[in-house]
């Protein structure tokens, strides 16, 4: 009799394990299928990946890396000349830049155009003083999953992404986010 | 003589030979009680069939040489090849079972298939880049062979049904059996009516205003008198028939109305032909055939039907799914894309999987199995005809 009970138990365990494994596989497939679009994308809380891009309006530096601003809050803005809303928010950024630079916040604008001419023209007309770098090959754009423009990342002094904003920002909003990434003095 | 002409003549010859062989196979059931005479007629019939088959192989090879690629690249070529494989599958199964009657039912199906094929454009056409690979030959030929073997199962199933369905009263079974026979008549209808109007040289053109402003209106040609016209279409050929009704708006595509029109004509012509047959026979067609099948051993026919599925299923899987996936992976970097043709190959495969499971473990034999064989063939034909002409995706040859 002991043998039979044992056998029964074994059978139950075997069946339970098999079913659990298969159900887990199905659950995994269903879950992956519906979260497929979201994977691999930089999330708030992730560390902002480093990069190195050629500068356009920085006199003393050929290229800039993100870790150059270590310990500072960084507003990383992706823009292009062919994107009107990008150009609308630029003056706001310029307006806030001098004040926040003193507080330890940098603004870094990554341009996505192909030529330098249009960028230089734009900088001249709007008297932009924050550093602008150019990502001609779109590598950094891809790294940061930038689809539609403008796109802005607010990176805290610890290098973590605090906010990701897609679309144009108002003056108030920029200021609000900049305050959040201001390092404590 | 040009090679392409030789090729056409060989195909024509094969067609005639199949037709003659069919009559000889018919002769085998007439010889009552004379076993020897029957065997001799059967031998003549299968010999003619084989010669016909060789002639069609000749067509295939000469056309291959003439076109510089295997002639399986458009609807005409593929359908003709399917007919050829059907004859091949029949010859193989004939030599296993020596069932003359199978010839009487399989060869007409092959004849219909080839005649149907020749209604499509027959010019030798160049290969577009997506078709330029050996997988075209490998996939298409294996798939056609698999489908052809499965089609033999239909022929055997049909024999079984005509023999065993009780014809003494009209019921669901007799209705559906007549429906299958009518479907064959409608195919003949399509061939007859298309040939007739092609012979006359009938042509009517419709003009459809474009949806975009300032764009030229689209012109659509009808080769059959329009029973149904295109949505918003305007007849511009003088003296041509005005459509009785126009297709609804959702039937988009320039050719939708013309295809529906041909379909209606085929059904009507089929109906006329079927009606005439009924008038002559004065009973249902299946009921008229039944007395000739008294000598048939239903168990043997049932086994032939099942055996054809057993042989055809692996070939079909290999050709229509596995080879198809390998090619799709190479051409479109995904082995499966839920294209309608792919889906219907899957549907066919699932259907025969059901057939096999029902037969093996649920004991579905005899009549039920025969009905399934018929439905299976209907699915294959749907994939061959309707999916190409109506749903159309990547595989749209036409």
């Amino acid at each position, binding site marked *: 009799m002991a043998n039979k009970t044992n056998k029964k138990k074994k059978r139950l365990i075997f069946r339970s394990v098999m079913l659990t494994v298969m159900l887990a*596989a199905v659950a995994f497939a269903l879950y*992956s299928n519906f979260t497929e679009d979201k994977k691999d994308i930089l999330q708030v809380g992730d560390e902002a990946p480093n990069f190195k891009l050629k500068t356009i309006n920085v006199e003393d530096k050929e290229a800039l890396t993100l870790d150059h601003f270590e310990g500072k809050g960084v507003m990383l803005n992706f823009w292009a000349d062919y994107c009107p809303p990008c150009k609308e928010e630029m003056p706001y950024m310029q307006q806030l830049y001098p004040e926040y630079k003193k507080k330890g916040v940098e603004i870094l604008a990554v341009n*996505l155009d192909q030529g330098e001419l249009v960028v230089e023209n734009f900088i001249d007309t709007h008297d932009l003083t924050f550093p602008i770098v150019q990502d001609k090959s779109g590598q950094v754009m891809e790294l940061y999953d930038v689809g539609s423009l403008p796109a802005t990342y607010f990176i805290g002094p610890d290098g973590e992404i605090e906010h990701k904003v897609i679309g144009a920002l108002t003056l108030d909003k920029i200021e609000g986010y900049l305050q959040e990434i201001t390092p404590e003095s | 003589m040009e090679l392409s002409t030789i090729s056409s003549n060989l195909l024509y010859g094969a067609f005639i030979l199949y037709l003659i062989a069919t009559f000889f196979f018919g002769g085998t059931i007439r010889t009552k009680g004379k076993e020897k005479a029957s065997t001799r007629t059967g031998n003549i019939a299968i010999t003619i069939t084989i010669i016909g088959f060789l002639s069609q192989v000749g067509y295939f090879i000469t056309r291959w040489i003439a076109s510089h690629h295997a002639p399986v690249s458009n609807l005409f070529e593929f359908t003709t090849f399917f007919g050829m494989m059907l004859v091949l599958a029949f010859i193989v199964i004939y030599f296993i079972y020596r069932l003359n009657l199978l010839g009487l039912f399989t060869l007409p199906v092959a004849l219909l298939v080839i005649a149907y094929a020749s209604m499509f454009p027959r010019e*030798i056409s160049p290969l577009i880049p997506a078709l330029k690979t050996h997988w075209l030959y490998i996939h298409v030929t294996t798939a056609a062979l698999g489908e052809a073997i499965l089609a033999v199962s239909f022929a055997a199933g049909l024999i079984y049904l005509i023999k065993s369905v009780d014809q003494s009263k009209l019921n669901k079974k007799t209705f559906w059996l007549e429906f299958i026979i009518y479907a064959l008549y409608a195919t003949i209808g399509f061939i007859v009516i298309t040939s007739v109007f092609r012979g006359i040289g009938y042509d009517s053109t419709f003009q459809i205003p474009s949806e975009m402003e300032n764009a030229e209106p689209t012109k659509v040609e009808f080769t059959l008198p329009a029973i149904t016209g295109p949505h918003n279409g305007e007849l511009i050929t003088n003296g041509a028939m005005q459509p009785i009704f126009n297709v609804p708006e959702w039937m988009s595509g320039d050719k939708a109305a013309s295809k529906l029109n041909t379909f209606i004509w085929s059904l009507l012509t089929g109906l006329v032909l079927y009606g005439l047959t009924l008038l002559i026979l004065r009973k249902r067609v299946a009921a008229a055939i039944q007395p000739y099948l008294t000598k048939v051993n239903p*168990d043997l026919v049932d086994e032939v039907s099942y055996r054809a599925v057993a042989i055809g299923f*692996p070939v079909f899987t290999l050709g229509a799914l596995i080879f198809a996936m390998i090619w799709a992976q190479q051409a479109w970097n995904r082995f499966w894309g839920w294209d309608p043709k792919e889906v219907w190959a899957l549907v066919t495969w699932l259907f025969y999987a059901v057939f096999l499971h029902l037969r093996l473990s649920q004991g579905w034999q005899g009549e039920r199995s025969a009905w399934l064989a018929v439905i299976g063939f209907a699915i294959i034909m749907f994939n061959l005809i309707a999916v190409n002409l109506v749903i159309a995706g990547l595989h749209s040859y036409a």
Partner: protein
Amino acid sequence: MKNITCECGHVNPEGTVLCEACGKPIEGNQHINGNQPNKLLNMRYDGSARRSQTYNKTFVDKIWNFFSSVKVGVWLIALTLIASAIGTIFPQEANNQSPLPANQYYEQNYGIAGKIYYQLGFHDLYGSWWYMLLVASIGISLVIASLDRFVPLYRALKKQKPKRHETFLTKQRLFGQADQATEEDKEALVQGLKKQRYKVYEQDGHILAEKGRFARWGPYVNHIGLIIFLIGTLLRFVPAMYIDESMWVREGETKQIPGTDRQYYIKNEDFFVETYDKDDPRYQEAIEEQGGTVVKNYQTNAVLYERTDEALPGSEPELKKIKEGAIQVNRPIKVDQFALYQTTYQLDEFKTMTFKIHEKSDEDEKELDTFTVDLVDPKPEYNLENGIRITVDNYFPEFEMQNGEPTSVSKYPKNPAFVFNIFTPDNPDKPEVSFVGIGANLDPSGENQYKVGLKDFETRDVTGLTITKDLTLPILGLGGLIFMIGVIQGMYWNHRRIWIHPREEGVWIAGHTNKNWFGIKRDLEKIVEGTNVPMVTDQNELKE
């Protein structure tokens, strides 16, 4: 668990229909296979004890037994079949190639039917949770149903004895009594069987001849193949196993290949489209029928590079050439685990534009000088002959007027337009402003002395490639291969058994096959030939 001891002494597990050793129908279990006293025996699974039929105590057992049922399996396949077919009525969202969003597309194109189709979720049928669940259920059913049947069947075929119960024999479809058969006849039968390549076993004068037993494992082998295939499709959801990206590369451009973690780069040396010769007599007719042009080839000549430094993204990488070759439809180029496919293209994007300058009043437009502008990265200044200097005041790669303002809608030079400043030696501080684009040439002031006009341009093609890495392919291939082996094994061979049962006078012969009765009958005809044993009868035919 109640084991059943047969009168032959063999102990059978509970739920056995026919004794594993001698085949005697076990009383009280005949309903399982639907056997009836006056009919032939149902031989499926050789009457072995399918476990699902017996243990049905716990919840786990109930789920197990649900999936173990062939009837359930058949229903699952049938439902999948119907669902799949429904998915082809209208194009799937992923395949419809319409700019319209799905919620408008179906209603606009197919009216009320399309609306219902969309609302029921059929527009994305094959990616829907319930379709995936159906396929998954088939997978589970495959595993459980196979396990439940394979083990007992294996046992039954292993334990079978040549000595069979008489009821078993008389209720076989092929059965014959040969009362006149002698020992010599029996020996002749055995020899005949061996000649037909049967394996012959003997026990107390009882004979079992068997061939093709391995065909019985075919279904289980093909089910294993299917399971492996399904596991392969499941693994595609693991990100490391499957990558599918796409990219555009302009002629002359070197770009990193997405999905390769910045390891590989590709340069598009040349992209071209070839068409068939219209006048080739071979295809003339067909080409005419198809509108005059039939494409022969789409090709990108590419060079592949690997990055050799650890440079940060964005900076210029150091590259080492690793491969050079053509990418064509059906002929992808491979690097490491990645394959690059020719998927799409764009012809004739502008690359450079050459302008000429002339005096506005000159009716012959005699050119004073020309200058060429690189449209990807224009230089800001051009110094011409006779002291004219031209600067680019503004550049719009894809020019469009929006709200009365000239703007560019992309960074690609699809419709380039320029605002030039022309500095002449006479007037070095006050430039003339000139707007030049395709089909547009404006002089805003109306007082310009010089005019800049488009003289020539160069174009280049853009190739669209798809990059995939698919480590599941070998698994899928293996699954397909095993499936094929399994179906062929099960379909092209059959398991035939013939029993010879000695009686006081003569022998009884019975035969069984899992398929192809015609074949086993032919075997038997050859075996009984030349003996006193009459051909067995097909008891199935007798009942007619």
